[in-house]
């Protein structure tokens, strides 16, 4: 990659607004082109694809993985990885539902507890990685197993249903024609953008991914930043759990198996370097939507589900291959 992914916003300013040249030179260009091409293909293949209903549908479906991918982006930017997001999401939703249903606590208390679970596990990951100096892939792999096991233990393997009905608003509510999960997703991305592009913390995230030792020696609190990054990932997992719980109206200890891989794919499709230091949060959003469109479009076209896996794999390879050197 020969472009600096961290200062695009400013490059844009220098170019005097959003000119075509800027768009083509931005690290977002390729993910965006990929998105457009795939959308057009899907539009040809299925008449329903471009209906407003379907677009909202895709965005709503995408929202959960897209929100998980926000935390994943922070973590990957520092050069780490978080394999526990799916399991943490499931545990957070299960415990939230369990507290409401079995302990009779109010919905808000349950939701707060769910957020607490997510952040808590994120901090656990962060402490292990930053202070324990253990490889992130192993720490979060272990956390994944632990969180899954705890969720199943807590629920005895049953889904927990019977939560207050207003919680469904988070999953299936709408404001105007826009589904609530989509609005939540947009807000979370906006906050993440500000954090990454406009705050010192964000710069430090990029710096650690670029050269951790140099960042540390120049006075960046690298351990604290890493801790925060995993805590953010736990938090976004818990937000995803909130939407999932609203969508399914139950706590599902088995939900989200394999979502970590979808979230990683979204981040990388969005142009973020897997080794850290370079990438844009908006790229991740594009990557997540691209994945969602693939799922949706292949479904709409009625393609054999087994074949869908093959096609998705090939398209991901192609997208990364084209985007690799930009």
């Amino acid at each position, binding site marked *: 990659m020969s472009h600096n992914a961290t200062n695009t916003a400013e490059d844009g300013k220098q170019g005097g607004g959003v000119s075509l040249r800027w768009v083509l030179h931005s690290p977002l260009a390729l993910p965006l082109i990929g998105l457009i091409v795939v959308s057009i293909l899907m539009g040809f293949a*299925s008449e*329903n694809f471009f*209906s407003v*209903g*379907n677009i909202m*549908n895709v965005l*709503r*479906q995408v929202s*959960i993985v897209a929100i998980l991918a926000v935390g994943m982006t922070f973590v990957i930017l520092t050069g780490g990885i978080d394999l526990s997001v799916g399991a943490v999401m499931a545990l957070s939703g299960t415990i939230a539902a369990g507290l409401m249903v079995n302990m009779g606590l109010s919905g808000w208390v349950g939701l707060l507890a769910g957020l607490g679970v997510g952040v808590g596990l994120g901090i656990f990951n962060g402490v292990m990685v930053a202070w324990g100096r253990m490889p992130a892939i192993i720490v979060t792999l272990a956390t994944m197993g632990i969180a899954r096991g705890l969720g*199943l233990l807590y629920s*005895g*393997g*049953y*889904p927990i*249903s019977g939560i207050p009905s207003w919680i469904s608003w988070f*999953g*299936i509510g709408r404001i105007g024609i826009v589904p609530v999960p989509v609005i939540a997703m947009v807000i979370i991305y906006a906050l993440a953008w500000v954090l990454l592009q406009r705050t010192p913390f964000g710069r430090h995230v990029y710096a650690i991914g670029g050269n951790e030792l140099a960042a540390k020696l120049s006075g960046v609190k690298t351990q604290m930043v890493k801790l925060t990054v995993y805590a953010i990932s736990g938090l976004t997992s818990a937000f995803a759990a909130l939407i*999932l719980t609203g*969508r*399914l*109206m*139950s706590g*599902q*200890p*088995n*939900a*989200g*198996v394999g979502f970590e891989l979808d979230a990683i794919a979204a981040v990388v499709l969005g142009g973020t370097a897997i080794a850290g230091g370079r990438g844009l949060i908006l790229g991740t959003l594009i990557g997540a939507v691209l994945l969602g469109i693939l*799922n*949706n479009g292949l*479904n*709409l*076209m*009625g393609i054999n*589900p*087994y074949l869908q896996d093959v096609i998705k794999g090939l398209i991901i390879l192609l997208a990364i291959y084209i985007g690799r050197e930009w």
Partner: protein
Amino acid sequence: AQEDGLKIGMTFQEMNNPYFVSMQEALMAAAEDLGAEVVVTDAGHDVAKQISDVEDMLTQGIDILLLNPTDSAGIESAVHMAKAQDVIVVAVDANANGPVDTFVGSKNRDAGYQSCKYLAEAIGGEGEVAILDGIPVVPILERVEGCKAALDEFDGVTLVDTQNGRQDRSVALGVVENMIQSHQNLAGIFSVNDGGAMGALAAIQGSGRDIKLTSVDGAPEAVAAIAEGGPFIETTAQFPRDQVRVGLAMALAQKWGARVVPSEVPIDVSVIDAENAADFSW
């Protein structure tokens, strides 16, 4: 094996599904009555792990093996190993190849057939239907076969889509949303199990369309949803607890010296709809 107590091992194809969890509960209750020791393992849909689990249980000296195979063919070597140690082997829910003493299982093909017949009748014998498939294991594949056989009997019914919801509520939800988007005239959906059906139900309710839903299992949540009325109209219930109870009884009979235990005990499935849902539970 310990001389005094009876030791029962049961290996499940998965344990994060209420269907199998309730089997386990019935087993525990029965074993407590008998004063028997129980070992339970979870294969997580992995036959290789299931064979290992059986090996481990044989090491512990179990007397009875209740086998809920992830795959009938794949598990065969474990059956041979168990028989080589004179352990009584009862296959539960799905059959296993090899010298199994008894197979106690529900009729998955029938279950698929009945659900889809109910569905086809409910939509008046004509219209578009779709199948929400699941993890490709034999019982699920049989349900799909049964379903297709039933649908074939109705000339007016067309199967327009088959998608995989992986029996997971969250996955099924998205997949069914897409189905509904792409088939404007969809009138009915058959889900291969209740887990997927609950996701499908949320998608149907979210769309506000009139689509009928049937399924297989009889899980408490599904039964509750059917009792409420709404899109979810039927599930063909299996009897997981009874399967374990009968299976264990067969094994005990043999343990006590019975020489002519039935080699196969089919457990019927039964249609649960709004009329009888309130009174049903596993």
